[in-house]
């Protein structure tokens, strides 16, 4: 009764959860791509897309992807054999357990007319599959908690998944072990199937046989047994029991476990421990089922969908409504496995910048959280934005994702949306913008230019002197502060040797590109060197020249005084960004 009620409740929660999730896939808006597409349009596009695909040649691609990437997990195998084996063991053997053992009344008994859980091969296979899952779980624990590959993060959801499967497996084995030894279960079965009651002579014979061969622990009937008694027991066994019972030794984990419990078996049996374990075992399964739509186990459904959708979709050709839906689905398809982060080109940078959102596996979790919450605080959004910008768009995360998530598209989409915010992102002033520059034809001109202007203005606004060009500059004493802060080891302090000959400025192709370079660029290279020499921070940081520097090193190569002009400019850029960023942060906006 309790079993059925809890089963139905968990199924109901699972179905409601799944419907809720599907609704979020059709309604949640991510980044710039999904703006202004109503849910009704997304639903109709999704249905249309699915139907059209099923009746097209694309179905062949889908079948291929389903076999190679969903069932055989090709993408995981290509990246990491250990991780592939771990996952195949857990998911493969768990699926087999689900089909053969958990759904035995529906599947196994229907296929095999003589099915009984305690009969071979089912008895043996159940333990075999269980053992395989446990090996997989141990490998997962080893990877996440002992091996700890660089930058692999383990969150509560990862731990929950491992713990839940471990509970299901371990409770199942202990349950099996206690049932093998259980005297009360044995007694009930004998009454039910052999029609023999305790105290009868035949009972003694059968029990002797079961104690001898099947690991049953009896309070009074104990070895050694006479051969004749065992022979009689064997006959009774063959008459009433053997149709459903193979030797429990075939349960090669449960049986040894039962033997080690031998001494305590009677006490455990009296206390009804096997009933308790049964509750733990099935409730853990039901909790897993009910919680599935909200846990990382949802990837059982979403990862195949993501793999299949991405195999036939293309940003340029597919319906934008379906792209929006796919991206919402993809957030739920992430298993937080860390494959993307392990291959991320800029992953190591997290060690310097401290922003975990640089790592793709953490970035997608943060985006998922932000999308679900609807509103996130500004500092979190800034961290996500920086995370999406410190990215070389190398496509490796997308190439290796075992769930087939198009991460690069996701970053681009979220990045463009977040760049519309009112706070500056300084990474735009670096070659990290190269990819965005190549993609600019797809971005509205205002949206494209705004973050660049915003970042430059934010830096210039901290430089009072640049705003008042007529203000007299006090030259003495020259500030040592700037000079002291230029310590990044490029011998950037070589600027003090500058005697203002302007060779750098004359060599600069940026200066040469403008008719009135001073108007456009603010300060020219030799002036910046001089300002730096005098320690006038505002003039050194505030010039647009810094951000228009090509880093072509013509100035540095030609400087007669050995001033590392380009390196100084680099270092001034770093400092200007650092100063402005801390200003922006402390002013809270």
């Amino acid at each position, binding site marked *: 009764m309790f079993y059925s009620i809890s089963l139905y409740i968990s199924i109901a929660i699972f179905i409601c959860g799944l419907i809720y999730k599907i609704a979020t896939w059709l309604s949640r808006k991510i980044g710039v791509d999904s703006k202004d597409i109503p849910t009704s349009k997304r639903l109709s596009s999704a249905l249309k897309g699915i139907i059209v695909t099923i009746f097209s040649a694309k179905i062949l691609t889908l079948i291929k992807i389903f076999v190679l990437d969903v069932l055989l997990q090709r993408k995981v195998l290509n990246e990491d054999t250990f991780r592939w084996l771990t996952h195949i063991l857990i998911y493969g053997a768990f699926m087999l357990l689900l089909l053969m053992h958990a759904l035995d009344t529906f599947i196994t008994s229907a296929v095999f007319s003589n099915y009984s859980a305690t009969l071979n091969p089912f008895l043996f296979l159940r333990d075999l599959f269980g053992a395989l899952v446990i090996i997989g779980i141990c490998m997962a624990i080893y990877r996440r908690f002992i091996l700890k590959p660089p930058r692999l993060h383990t969150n509560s959801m990862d731990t929950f998944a491992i713990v839940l499967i471990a509970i299901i497996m371990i409770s199942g084995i202990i349950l099996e072990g206690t049932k093998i030894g259980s005297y009360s279960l044995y007694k009930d079965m004998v009454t039910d199937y052999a029609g023999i009651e305790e105290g009868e002579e035949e009972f003694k014979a059968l029990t002797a046989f079961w104690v001898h061969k099947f690991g049953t622990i009896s309070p009074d009937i104990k070895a050694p047994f006479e051969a004749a008694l065992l022979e009689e027991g064997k006959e009774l066994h063959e008459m009433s029991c053997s149709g459903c019972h193979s030797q429990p030794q075939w349960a090669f984990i449960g049986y040894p476990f039962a033997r080690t419990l031998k001494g305590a078996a009677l006490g455990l049996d009296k206390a009804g421990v096997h009933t308790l374990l049964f509750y733990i075992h099935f409730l853990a399964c039901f909790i897993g089922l009910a919680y599935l739509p909200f846990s990382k186990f949802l990837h059982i459904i979403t990862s195949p969908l993501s793999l299949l959708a991405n195999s036939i979709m293309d940003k340029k050709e597919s319906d934008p409504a379906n792209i929006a839906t796919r991206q919402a689905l993809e957030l739920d398809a992430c298993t937080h496995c860390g494959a993307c982060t392990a291959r991320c080109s800029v992953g190591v*940078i997290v060690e310097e910048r401290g922003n975990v959102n640089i790592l793709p596996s953490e970035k997608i979790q943060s985006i998922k959280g932000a999308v679900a919450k609807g509103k996130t605080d500004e500092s979190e959004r800034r961290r996500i934005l920086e995370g999406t910008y410190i990215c070389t768009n*190398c496509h*490796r995360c997308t190439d290796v994702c075992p769930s087939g998530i198009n991460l690069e598209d996701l970053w681009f989409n979220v990045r463009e949306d977040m760049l519309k915010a009112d706070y500056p992102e300084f990474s735009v002033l670096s*070659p990290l913008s190269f990819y965005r520059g190549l993609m600019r034809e797809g971005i509205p001109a205002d949206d494209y230019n705004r973050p660049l202007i915003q970042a430059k203005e934010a830096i210039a606004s901290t430089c009072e002197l640049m705003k008042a060009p007529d203000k007299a500059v006090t030259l003495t004493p020259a500030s040592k502060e700037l000079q002291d802060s230029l310590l990044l080891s490029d011998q950037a302090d070589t600027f003090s040797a500058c005697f203002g000959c302007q060779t750098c400025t004359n060599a600069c192709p940026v200066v040469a590109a403008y008719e009135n370079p001073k108007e456009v660029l603010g300060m020219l290279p030799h002036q910046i060197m001089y300002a730096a020499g005098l320690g006038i921070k505002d003039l050194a940081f505030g010039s647009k020249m810094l951000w228009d520097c090509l880093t072509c090193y013509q100035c540095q190569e030609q400087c007669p005084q050995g001033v590392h002009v*380009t390196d100084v400019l680099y270092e001034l850029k*770093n400092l200007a960004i650092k100063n402005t960023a801390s200003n922006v942060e402390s002013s809270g906006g």
Partner: protein
Amino acid sequence: MKYALFLGCTIPARLTQYESSSRAILGNLGVELIDIKEFACCGYPLRNIDFKASILASARNIALAEKENLPMLILCKCGFGTLKHADHILKEDPSLRNEINATLKKEGLEYNKGVEIRHLLSVLYHDVGSEAIKEKVTRPFKDLRIATHYGCHALRPSEITQFDDPVNPTLFDNLVTLTGAESIYWEKRIDCCGAPLTGVNDDLSMDLTEKKLANAKQSGADFLCDACSYCHIQFDTVQGMITHTTSNNNLLPAILYPQLLGLSMGIDGRTLGLAENTIDITSIERRLSE
């Protein structure tokens, strides 16, 4: 000759023909390439915003090559320049090196003495040598005039990159000559392609690109030849964008050096990824001798 091939981020994602053509010619010349899967960002795009992050990225790559005890062969000049610069800094500054090593240690890496950092063109010219290349050139070009684009980050700062004479370089011209093509002199050959400002100041970036291309064309070039991922995307993809958005139809198609050399070695255009260039360069095949 054995090198760890460093591709960086851009080539596998946006310029696969540079990889395939380089592998083809290097294979033909008997150069063995080892792939180190863990290679990642060279650090170049980070230097504007965070010097130490950039050095860390470079150091990690060098440490990976050092672990395998292999010299690095770099295709991209920005990557080459950045790695050379970081290598120099790491040798000069022991306290920074210790700091970086403390971070690298977490993944079992260490920058100790560093490894040799070589650009593709240097490997071809100095390590493989003109004679060996000449032997493999079976279909030299005829009547083909090439403008060589040297690339800033290989040439300068010369005391660190040690690539060639920074004012009057000849290495690239000599390599082009080996293919039977004529390497013309042009005024802007050692100037910047404009790529560092793509995405930051596109007007200026495209202006520099256009001026360079115009200068090469006026100097009589049929094609521009480059050997850097950023430069090539600038002269190919961005040039395509320039002609798309402006009325300027004064095209000067760009070809990657390994594509040029590969053709003269008789390697087919498909292996060299000619069709993957944005601007059609297949007409160059007509300049090959029979």
